Structure formats: C-alpha cells, structure tokens
C-alpha cells in the first residue's frame, strides 16, 4: 500500500511540475528500502521484481508513452540490489554498510531516468537528469535515516 502511495505522490509531484522537472524516484526508493530490510525469510525478492515491473509499466504508460524504459530500469535496479545485498551475509548488514546502502539507493535514482536519455538521446536533457539527482539526495538521506533506525530497533 505504501508503494502505491509513493507511486501516486511521485506522479502528483510530476503533474505539479508539469513534467518539466525530474522528480525523485520515490517509488523505487520504497522498493529498494523493502529489499534492504528484508531478512530473507520470504519471497520479498520476487515480490520486488514484479512490483518494480508493474510500477515501471504504469509509469511508462503515464509519462513516456512507450512501455519499457522505466520498466527495464526498475527491474535492473531491483536485480542489482538483490545481487549486491545477497553477497553480504545477514550478520554483516547491521553495521558498516552505510556506503553500500547509499550506493544502492542512489542506483535506484540514477539508472531508471538514465535509460530514456541513453536510448532517446535529446528527449530528456542531462541537465534535467543531474537536477533530479540533486533533488533526490534529501530523499535518499531520509531513506537511509529510516533504514538505520529500523536496523537499530531490530538489533536491540
């Protein structure tokens, strides 16, 4: 449910800015966060892959007009998070992983909007892309803060 809300908030912010400004990928931050706090007991990974796929398709239909761009980017991000996070043993995820968490969350913001630029070229500017990264930073830091609190409360 929270991911639906995040998707809608991301959509409303894009509507508010008229689509002219790149909005932080709140939806993918939510998906990445869910994967980071996953203890590996369930099918969170499979759920994340298809949720990202569905969210990407809907985003593409709404804002790109051609399904596939963000769909592909979202799925790639989920696979990267699963693979990188899978390398680290659960015991080692508690401390000393701040930089990795930041890198994974940053990847969720860089990869999806970069694909349309790489494929379509001039349709979206690199300037807009870097501006989005600047806007995303507070959202990433906030997600890291929530993550650290969650980890701390789980380990107590």
């Amino acid at each position, binding site marked *: 449910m929270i991911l639906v809300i995040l998707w*809608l908030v991301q*959509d*409303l*912010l894009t*509507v*508010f*800015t*008229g689509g002219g400004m790149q909005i932080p990928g709140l939806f993918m931050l939510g998906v990445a966060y869910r994967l980071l706090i996953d203890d*590996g007991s369930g*099918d969170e*990974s*499979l759920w994340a*892959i*298809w949720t*990202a*796929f569905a969210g*990407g*398709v*809907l985003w*593409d*239909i*709404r804002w790109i*007009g*051609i*399904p*596939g*761009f963000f*769909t*592909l980017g979202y*799925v*790639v991000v*989920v*696979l990267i998070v*699963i693979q990188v996070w*899978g390398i680290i043993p659960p015991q080692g995820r508690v401390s000393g992983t701040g930089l990795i968490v930041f890198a994974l969350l940053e990847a969720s913001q860089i990869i999806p909007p970069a694909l349309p630029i790489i494929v379509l070229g001039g349709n979206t500017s690199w300037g807009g892309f870097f501006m989005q990264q600047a806007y995303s930073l507070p959202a990433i830091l906030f997600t890291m803060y929530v993550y650290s609190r969650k980890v701390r409360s789980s380990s107590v």
Partner: protein
Amino acid sequence: MDNRRSSTREFVHGITALILALFLLGVSSGLGVLKSIVDIWGAILFIPEYPAVIMREMFLEWRSWSRDKDYLSGEVTRLRNENANLRLELAKIAGEKIYSPDKTPEARTARVTLRAPMSWWSEIRIDRGEHDKITQGLPIFSNGYLIGRVSTVSLISSWAELITSSSFMIPAVIEETRELGVVEGDGSGSVLLRYIPAGRGVRSGMKVSTAMIGEQLPPGLPIGQIAGEFTPGSDGYTTYRIEPGADLSRFYTVNY
C-alpha cells in the same frame, strides 16, 4: 539447498522480467492499442491527479501575476523617470523662466539693518517700513529667489521671517512634477520640503516655487531646487532637502 533454490527462482523471475521489459520496449511502439491504453490510464489517474492540476494552475497563475506585477512596477518607475527627465529637458528648452523681482522695473531694494546672532536663521530687520508701502506678509527676495516674508511692520523699519526659520511654513510646488508640499525651515539653516508622496519620480535639481494655494504669497515665486532626499517615512511621504536659490549666509540687501 534452499538458498540455491531461492537464488535460482530470483534469477528466473529477474530474467523473465527483463526479457518482458525489453520485449515491451521493442514492440510497444508498433502496437496500435497502446494509444488507447495510455488514454485510459490517463483518464483513470485524472481523478487522483486533479488536486495537483489545480495547485499547478494556481501556482502558474500566481507566478504570472507576480511577473506581470514586477514588469508593470518596473515600467511605471521607468516611465516616471522618463517623464521627470522630459520635464527637465522641457524646462531647459523653455529657457528656465524664473520669476525675478530684482530684475523687474518696479523692484525695490531694502538694506538689512540687523541680523541678531541669537535668531540668525529666523529673522532680519530691514530699513523699510510703512512709508515705503511695506505690508505684513510681503515676500522678500535675494538674487531673485524667495528668502522670507515680512512679519512685523513699523514706521521706518520692518522685521522679516526667513525661510530657514522653524516657524516658516508655506505651500510649495515642484515645478517639474506639480507635486504639492510644504516648505519649512528647521531653524538651523536648512530648508525642507515635506509631505511629498514617495515614489513620484522627484529628482535632485527640480525647481521648487510657491504654490497657488498660498494665503498671502503669490504662486510661482522661486525658492530653490531639490538637493536631496531623506528616507521615506512609514506614512508613505518623503521629505526633501531644498537648496535655496539665494545665498542665505551672505546677503546685505533684499528686494521686495
């Protein structure tokens, strides 16, 4: 064993999702139904997006109004300055006709007989009185500019109040802008023009003369020119410092 099975499932699902995404990317541009799907999805999202649409419209309206206001405000200031400059130019072209009583045939001269240090900036005594047709309120001039008016008259002499006196207050007009104000002295050698609304394009060098609404003084008597501006008060009015046309530190005779 479970871990390996789980990894395999993740791998299979991940690859499937990737292939599907690439498939969509490859074929969707050629799908005729895609446009309908985009329209339907847009129509569904229209309801939750409606507040954002309204907020965006309000924001754009506010921004447009703000820009227009800034533009118009700048334009008004520019036109005011242009108007003031044109008035100055016009005055120069017109030959700067200044009322000059000491140059008129009927101009009469009086000698200053007393200027007490205690009331240096307030009053002077002149050697003309009732016999010389001096009357109370008569304006006196130096170098063609108003420097005061007769306050008391005796048989052979009179006292005149100077424009630098703190009790001297007369209505005046800025000739270039026709703004009306009150000229008054501060008792310390300065002459001020008060009650001019702020932001009316008044500039240094503009001429100040008596206004038509004066009780005793005729209109158009030159006083001096705007020399500087004090900070506008909270009441929206500005006080200007006037540089008198006459040299109030050095005059031995006056005209009337």
